[in-house]
């Protein structure tokens, strides 16, 4: 892995990120850069090199930040080192985005010339500007027939407030204009600040687990120098010391180097056992010559959405535990603790950064570890003030104490920033109000409107984004930021199946919505629970009071009318399908309940 590596003067280094909405072409543009700078030969060039996980490839979302160091021969005759620091492309990972941006002096704002500006791009762009980065707007996909460069340029100016005159127009797909972007990076972005002579301060941009190398961190040297050769380093948040095993840069292949100095971006391997020891945003310094102050902005991200995950087949519990252990090797924000439920057996209560994070984890568990799981309704963390002055934090409706003991329930809120074309403002406001949102602000930017609502997180985690997309014909985009918890009148709705309470189906809802939600939930479950050999009663209750009931009538017969002559294959297939369907169901008492019934809680229609 070691090889000769070009070490430029700091004035010839440019560190930058790409800010873009999902699907606006960030990865394709990055691939073009790698190609143009000769980072990989044609044979090694897989499409979208930076999105290395299969799932990322499929969904077009970057989950883990990766980076690449490129050499670029500029028109001024000099050779430059360009460090592209990748950023995760989803709102659940906004803290990671801010850390990636901190490691840069500049950013490319990539906007799809057909789609226009989206809320999350705006949010990330503001973060970049706040952090003092120089932002270069780039209009991508100009080769598309649906491209409207003039309108989108106006949006960049109106909404983000960037001078759009300097905007470059490119097509990352065809390669048109891409070289011009590299030139602008060199001429417009400042070289890294920071002094080689100061004590070492290196920012952890990302940490992951590599099967061969162990824990690997991507770092940006802000000040000082980091040498290889068993140097002792210290994590400033934990004050724990480690020895450097290897440092290097990604070209994008990993290449070991002797030293990384102020302005450089590279990887660090220091014999860490778990990624939690090298948290994103932490500062690394030298043990024998430590810096006085860590870099600002470090925080330990906390999960905001919790759900119970249970294997459909109880025998899979051990493999489920192993799978979670393996996943968390590479996902410091995934937390899980064992829990058990009478209905579902043994499982884990898992905490996620947000709904996308939850979906991704769930999908990876099912796909990479072949687990079939039931996911209970996701909830947020409620703060419960008891009569005796005690405070509880509850992330599972089943743990809610008796009402008589509760003085007050507080639920977490967030500020939602929604960018939407004027035509849909009314519909979006109604949606937010329906979800107990309180309007904070409204800004008109040309045809686009930026709405700000304070909303209960509970109302956003479930299916808010889908509804936002549907009421705005796909144009609305969302960014959010957590704020404090506020008092709320929440009640617990329990679901009973044939008279038996099914804990994992309980949900906390606002009292005003409780009747309505309970009815919808029960009616939806009735449609999803297949008919069985006996009647199945589905009820919803608040406390001891039953509010609604529906019945799934017993199956009266199940026999094929015509078994056609000699061809048994079709009937057999039908039977196999029926049987497979039953296998995917969870047995609760004597009632078989399909996965979808559990998820139905997530998808209750509200119109």
């Amino acid at each position, binding site marked *: 892995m070691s090889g000769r590596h070009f070490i430029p003067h700091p004035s010839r280094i440019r560190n930058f990120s790409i800010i873009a909405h999902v699907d606006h072409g960030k990865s394709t543009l990055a691939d073009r850069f790698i190609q143009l700078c000769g980072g990989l030969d044609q044979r090694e060039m897989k499409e979208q090199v930076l999105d290395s996980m299969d799932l990322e490839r499929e969904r077009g979302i970057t989950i883990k930040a990766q980076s690449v160091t490129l050499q670029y021969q500029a028109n001024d005759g000099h050779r430059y080192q360009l460090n592209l620091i990748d950023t995760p492309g989803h709102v659940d990972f906004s803290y990671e985005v801010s850390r990636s941006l901190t490691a840069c002096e500049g950013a490319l704002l990539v906007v799809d010339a057909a789609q226009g500006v989206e809320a999350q791009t705006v949010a990330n762009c503001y973060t970049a500007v706040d952090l003092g980065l120089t932002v270069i707007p780039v209009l991508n996909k100009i080769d598309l027939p649906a491209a409207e460069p003039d309108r989108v340029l106006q949006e960049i100016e109106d909404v983000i407030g960037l001078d759009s005159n300097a905007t470059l127009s490119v097509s990352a797909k065809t390669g048109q204009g891409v070289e011009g972007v590299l030139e602008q990076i060199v001429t417009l972005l400042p070289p890294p600040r920071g002094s080689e002579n100061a004590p070492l301060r290196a920012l952890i941009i990302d940490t992951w687990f590599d099967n061969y190398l162990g824990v690997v961190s991507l770092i940006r040297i802000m000040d000082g120098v980091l040498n290889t050769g068993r140097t002792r380093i210290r994590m400033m948040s934990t004050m724990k010391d480690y020895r450097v095993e290897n440092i290097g840069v990604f070209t994008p292949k990993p290449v070991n180097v002797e030293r990384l100095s102020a302005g450089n971006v590279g990887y660090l391997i220091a014999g860490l056992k778990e990624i939690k020891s090298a948290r994103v945003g932490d500062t690394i310094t030298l043990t024998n010559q430590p810096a006085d102050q860590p870099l600002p902005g470090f925080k330990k991200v906390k999960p905001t959405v919790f759900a119970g995950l249970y294997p459909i087949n109880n025998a899979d519990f051990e493999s489920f535990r192993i799978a979670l252990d393996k996943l968390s090797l590479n996902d410091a924000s995934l937390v899980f603790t064992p829990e058990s439920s009478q209905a579902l057996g043994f499982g884990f209560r898992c905490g996620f950064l947000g709904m996308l994070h939850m979906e991704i984890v769930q999908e990876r568990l099912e796909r990479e570890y072949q687990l079939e799981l039931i996911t209970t309704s996701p909830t947020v963390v409620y703060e419960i003030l008891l009569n005796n002055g005690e405070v509880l934090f509850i992330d599972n409706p089943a743990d809610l104490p008796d009402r008589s003991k509760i003085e007050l329930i507080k639920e977490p809120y967030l500020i939602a920033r929604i960018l939407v074309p004027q035509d849909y403002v009314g519909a979006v406001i109604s949606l937010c109000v329906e979800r107990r949102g309180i309007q904070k602000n409204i800004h008109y930017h040309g045809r686009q409107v930026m709405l700000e609502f304070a909303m209960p997180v509970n109302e956003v985690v479930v299916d808010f984004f889908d509804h936002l997309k549907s009421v705005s014909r796909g144009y609305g985009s969302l960014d959010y930021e957590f704020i404090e918890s506020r008092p709320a009148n929440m009640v617990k709705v329990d679901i009973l199946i044939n008279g038996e309470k099914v804990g994992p189906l309980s949900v906390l809802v606002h009292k005003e919505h409780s009747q309505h939600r309970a009815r919808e939930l029960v009616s939806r479950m009735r449609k999803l629970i297949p008919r069985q050999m006996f009647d199945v009663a589905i009820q919803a209750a608040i406390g001891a009071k039953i509010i609604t009931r529906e019945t799934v009538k017993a199956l*009266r*017969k*199940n026999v094929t009318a015509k*078994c056609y*002559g000699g061809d048994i294959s079709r009937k057999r297939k039908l039977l196999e399908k029926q*049987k497979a369907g039953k296998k995917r169901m969870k047995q609760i008492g004597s009632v078989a309940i399909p996965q979808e019934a559990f998820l139905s809680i997530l998808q209750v229609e509200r119109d």
Partner: protein
Amino acid sequence: MLVPPLSLYIHFPWCIKKCPYCDFNSHALKGALNAEKHEEKYIKALLTDLDADLDAATKDRKLVSIFMGGGTPSLFSAKSFSILLDQIKQRIALDANIEITLEANPGTLEHDQFEAYLESGINRLSLGVQSFDDRQLKTLGRIHDSNAAENAIQAAKTAGFENFNLDFMYGLPQQSAEMAVQDCLHAISYSPTHLSFYQLTIEPNTYFYQFPPRLPDDVQQIEIQTALQNTLNQYGYQQYEVSAYARPGRECKHNLNYWQFGDYLGIGAGAHSKLTGDDSIVRSWKQKHPETYMAHIKNNTAYKMENPVPQKERLFEFMMNALRLKDGIKLTTLQQRTGLPKNLAINALQHAINQKWVEITDESIRCTESGYLFIDEILQRLLPES
């Protein structure tokens, strides 16, 4: 294993048009059936197909039945059947009491045709009446009306067919038990030896699957079915299979052979065969599309696929057929035709026995009255783990 009785199935894959509920291997004709293009070529292909199938496994065996099904076999001329049956006789022995059935659809038949059919050796007819209610016939997309159905039955009888079946469907859109019984009584008035009542079900790859009609719910379905069973029983038609009723001794030999896990050769597009060897059971099937089938046979390229039935699948396959029989089947037949010990079957069916879905008396195994409504539930539990 003992060698079971052997039947021959011959498939005729064309219809005037495709019915909206039909998921069988039938293909709508564009225009009329062409004597040269379809008939002669197809009959020739059938015989080549049969020749290739006749080998050691079928040597010294007699056919107990021949069934010509479709599609609409009655689109073919009596002359074609005459040639076909003559040629079959030259190749394989026929049992003295052989049953030779032709499926025929009203609307494709002319009066004098029936006599010629009878002369060709066909001794049983199965007429696809489906209903006598013109509105229902229209919904079902049939090409005939009740008048055409009545004329066809009358003509068959006049020609001398005394052994015939009428096919009906029930559980039709807006059908009440009274309406179904009406249909049934109308059918009985022709004194057929056999009646089939199939519940209309919506199958994938059909027009109805895409545009489902509103059917009676399953409470109503059971009501209709019970009313039909009572009526048929009252007039001396005994239910011997889920959808089949017959006068005593007039059960369809050909279908009984399927349900008793007998052997059969299938020739024609998409036809299936099952043959028992010394210690093997092999299923095979032919190229499905008629044009491809004929072309492959002509060029002697692969048109036949086959699969052995492994031990672990035999109980399921056997029960899938046998449990459909009202009287069930002897455990000795199970042993003889699958090579499996009878205890294996008793153990595998324990759940169904506990549920009182299946009972074993007098060395016979059969569904109980309640089990007869849940055969698919029983079978699911017998499916071998893949």
